[in-house]
């Protein structure tokens, strides 16, 4: 279950696991008790019901225990999430520009690209803006997303670790081809990244939109 694309993703999975395990235990207690009572106190086995109208101690018990449990869940979730909001000093800054229905990435040396390249092991602040409607910048493998809201600049901090190629998708409904607003994130070594940064703009992409509309790709080549 654990995802090792980034440390952060792994920690999110730990929060998930904690909540899911607690929930499964609660669900089992409730379901098993319910089914057991229906069978055990069936009319045939128990022809006369006992009229029990309540029990204050029990009420306090099942208010207090879940309260402590959910407060712990809350804090655990907040503490991990907080890491993703702190921008470390010296973070690489990449501008992410969304528009119907593609992403563009702008690096501080003036280079533009349609697929995102990031060096491994270096914190990155992604500055999110849109040219038209709202989008949401979502990297499932990194367990993180942030909406790209018209008229404002949102941000997201990631620390890529494992080399590889990951999906980037749009998670906020943005019209006709919302579902094709897809591109790739390439996490490469620092050397490869510097090399890539020195090359010309790379405005081609093999994303989902191009797969559906190869004509545009051909036009772009010419």
């Amino acid at each position, binding site marked *: 279950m654990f995802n090792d694309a980034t440390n952060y993703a792994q920690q999110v999975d730990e929060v998930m696991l904690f909540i899911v395990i607690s929930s499964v235990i609660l669900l089992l207690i409730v379901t098993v008790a319910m089914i057991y009572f229906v069978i055990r106190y069936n009319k045939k086995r128990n022809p006369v019901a006992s009229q029990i109208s309540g029990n204050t101690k029990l009420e306090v018990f099942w208010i207090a225990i879940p309260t402590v449990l959910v407060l712990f869940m809350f804090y655990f979730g907040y503490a991990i999430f907080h890491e993703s909001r702190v921008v470390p000093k010296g973070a690489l800054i990449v501008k992410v520009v969304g528009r119907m229905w593609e992403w563009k990435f702008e690096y501080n040396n003036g280079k533009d690209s349609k697929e995102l390249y990031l060096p491994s092991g270096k914190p990155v602040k992604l500055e999110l803006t849109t040219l038209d409607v709202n989008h949401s910048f979502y990297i499932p493998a990194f367990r993180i997303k942030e909406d790209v809201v018209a008229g404002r600049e949102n941000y997201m901090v990631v620390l890529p670790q494992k080399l590889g190629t990951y999906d980037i998708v749009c*998670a906020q409904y943005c019209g006709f081809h919302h579902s094709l607003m897809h591109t790739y994130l390439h996490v490469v070594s620092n050397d490869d990244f510097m090399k890539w940064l020195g090359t010309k703009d790379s405005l081609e992409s093999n994303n989902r939109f191009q797969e559906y509309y190869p004509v545009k790709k051909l036009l772009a080549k010419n």
Partner: protein
Amino acid sequence: MENADTASYVDFYHAEGKHKGILSWLLTTDHKRIGLMYMCSMMTFMLIGMTLGVLMKIEMLTPGKTIVSAQTYNAMFTLHGLIMIFLFIIPGLPAIFGNFMLPLQIGARDVAFPRLNLLSWYFYMTGGIFAILSLFLRGGPIDTGWTFYIPYSIRTGTDVILPLLAAFILGFSSIITGINFVTTIHRMRAPGMGFFKMPLFVWSLYATAWIQIIATPIIGITIILVIIERLFQMGIFDPALGGDPLLFQHLFWIYSHPAVYIMILPAMGAVSEIIPTFAKRTIFGYKAIAYSSLAIAFIGYFVWAHHMFTSGISETSRFIFSLLTFLVAIPSGVKVFNWVATLYKGSITPGVPLLFVMLFVFLFSIGGLTGLVLGSLATNAHLHDTYFVVAHFHYVMFGGTVMIFFGALHYWFPKMFGKMYNEKIAKWTIPVIFVGFNMLYFTMFILGYEGMPRRYWDYLPKYQTLHVISTVGSWILVTGIIIMLVNLINGLRKGPKAPMNPWGGKTLEWTVPSPPPVYNFEEIPVITHGPYYYGGEEEK
């Protein structure tokens, strides 16, 4: 004994009124007839919404186009949401069972404002017809999602204004019903029925009615502002004109989150009716259940921004709204624990309504517990706007509210129609619904965790297996629901006559004949016991 008096009365179907034929329905002020008119219209809308849902699942069988284009798909999920939420689930239980049962349960002859009650049905129908009309007028079916987020809803070429007007008018229907119920509950209880002798369904309607009255005007104002923005480019929400799209999201969710509790509270109330009747014992923790309805209604106002955790709101807001979201889970938990405790040492007959309640407790618990996953900030940033959310709210709304809608239908059917359905067939539909439901929606939890966003016409091929399982589940589920409905219709047409009190319930609706006479009670009863009094000592 129960049927001895049936010859000497005329039930509300056959009573002579001012009008005859169809007009005796369209101009009626009888709460029971109005409840049934709501039922007919809502079941129709439910079937339309369900058909759209099934078609969407068929579209999801393969990546890319399966049966419809992206534009059609976008319109389909928008309509599915609009119809199911505004025309079925929000008004469902209060308008049908609330209207029919509230006066009966508190020993009244009608609601406080019978004519307003009829007016609210006309508002409801006007809203519904506007929503349907908008499909065929200029621009075509709305494609914004039921949340109609700005700026997309300002820019889309589809017709946004008419469906928004529909929601606006439906809001009035909801507010009027709320005012009517609050007044009825305050003023028209039978002598001796203090607030803590009211049935818990009435308590839940009371809490719901307050949310309807206080929260619904906010969506009304928001809708008007969106229409103004679209028509006159005022610059309220559109950032290009100096507006703020987050302001829209705040306003939208300040209503739409409490609306979730409008949807679930009456279902919880119906559960609190069904369990004591089938366990033949008083409910466990009456006050805890009653107060938890109020607590849900109250805290429910202050958690709206958990729909906006990823929208760029400050970290402080995220902290506070996440904390409050976790707290609102507690009163729901309290209810579940008290229901299960009510089964303890009961004398239980597993009738059809009780089986629906058991199905509800299981599915709703999953829905509630996955809500914790979404309330936690770390996991929310991953799962927000994915299929995980879709699964979560279907477990709550469908597994919760709609299962109890079905359960309540089976529970009060004999009272409403004076007929019985085939209980054996009804019991058999429950495992079918259980299997279909979990295949359809549990797979969506996994899809969401794997990163499949919602409102996607196309998807990456790696998700296909789960989508196929889910689609097959939808067919099983629909089969179960159709068998259930056909069984009820057969019961209506040729079922045996139902006795006055088929389940042995203790609330007042079971003390009048089935179906009830026009003015419900020949003599208004005097209340001396709690609502679920099966003998023994009572808590003071």
